[in-house]
């Protein structure tokens, strides 16, 4: 599955060339993150040697790099609010309402034990959206799910700004950072692989 398929289409902040696939070449400009994020830190964290050394050579570093790149692209300045059109309809279908989805997503973030990630995925077999938690570097692609959004719940992602207040961090992500543009683009792409039903073609 091509990684560039999941790059945010509307954003002019993510390089569109294949160089985007190589996180080492990515321009170290994380200024688009909400000012609360410590950009210096993420720049340092993304230098390959530090990534390898920090996460331990036993772990496949590419998994963590992939998860982090997906995470940067899951956010945008002035993010938050809610999706529209098809993705919103799908969320309402699978979670009852957007509010309910939001609550469940934040709840998953708070209930995660240890280091890990919270994901909104499209489940291939079941053909619906779901919230999943993964530990450490696990990526739901290994379960054949298609990631739509993720949230980094490793302590390094929020500790400098929020200390142990995970709830505040998760709420800030949902209210101000999450990029529904990216999610909608990924969802559109995902529907090339998962048939969610007949489109509603208006009769003339």
């Amino acid at each position: 599955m091509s990684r560039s398929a999941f790059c945010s289409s509307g954003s002019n902040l993510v390089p569109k060339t294949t160089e985007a696939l190589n996180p080492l070449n990515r321009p170290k400009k994380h200024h688009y993150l909400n000012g609360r994020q410590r950009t210096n830190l993420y720049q340092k964290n993304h230098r390959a040697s530090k990534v390898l050394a920090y996460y331990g050579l036993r772990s496949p570093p590419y998994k963590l790099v992939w998860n982090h790149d997906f995470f940067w692209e899951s956010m945008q300045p002035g993010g938050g609010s809610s999706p529209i059109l098809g993705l919103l309809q799908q969320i309402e279908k699978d979670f009852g309402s957007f509010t309910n989805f939001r609550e469940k997503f934040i709840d998953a973030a708070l209930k995660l034990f240890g280091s890990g990630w919270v994901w909104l995925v499209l489940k291939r077999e079941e053909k619906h959206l779901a919230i999943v938690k993964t530990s450490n570097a696990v990526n739901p692609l290994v379960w054949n799910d298609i990631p739509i959004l993720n949230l980094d719940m490793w302590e390094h992602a929020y500790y400098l700004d929020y200390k142990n207040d995970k709830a505040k961090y998760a709420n800030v992500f949902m209210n101000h950072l999450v990029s529904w543009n990216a999610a909608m683009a990924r969802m559109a792409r995902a529907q090339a692989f998962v048939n969610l039903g007949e489109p509603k073609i208006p009769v003339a």
Partner: protein
Amino acid sequence: MALRTLVTRKALGNSVAFRQQLRGLQTYTLPDLPYDYGAIEPAISGEIMQLHHQKHHQTYVTNFNKALEQLDDAINKGDAPTVVKLQSAIKFNGGGHINHSIFWKNLAPIREGGGEPPKGSLGWAIDNHFGSLEALVQKMNADGAGLQGSGWVWLGLDKELKRLVVETTANQDPLVTKGSSLVPLLGIDVWEHAYYLQYKNVRPDYLKNIWKVINWKYASDIYEKECP
């Protein structure tokens, strides 16, 4: 020794604790630190010690008590699925309480003996098993730095085989999950909250510096009790 507002702290957890005590349930409380928050500086900052103790450890204690109360309820109602479902919360929060209670005793200010190498039978056992104290420190640092995600690195004693071991556990699993005969002598918390504010992502620096405040006297006491 900083003033401790014991009354306030007990009052905070009062409602849950009070109900549990009425039912004869054991409740757990946050142990006091044997030293001030700033006494371990510069190895670990006072800010980290305070957050670690007052927020993180306190949360484990609170949630442990809550999970135990829910467990008691579920057992009394014969609700087997809930009994099983609660196990992960009990392991996580109970383990967090156990591990951190040991951790505070594993540290000591330098003027109270922190960092002083072990003497007596533990010192001898370390040399015997690992070659030298430096070799043990190197091994624990390597294992601690290499641990992926959150967890602990331990110096333990296998009390049946009478042998020292270095082990790691994930998340808040206590050492006993790696072997029922294992007794923890020293544990080093390598969760990011234990060092991030001060050392950022450079966990190896945290591990290098923490040895300056390790309380070998406590480890020796435990060792001599198990291996007289």
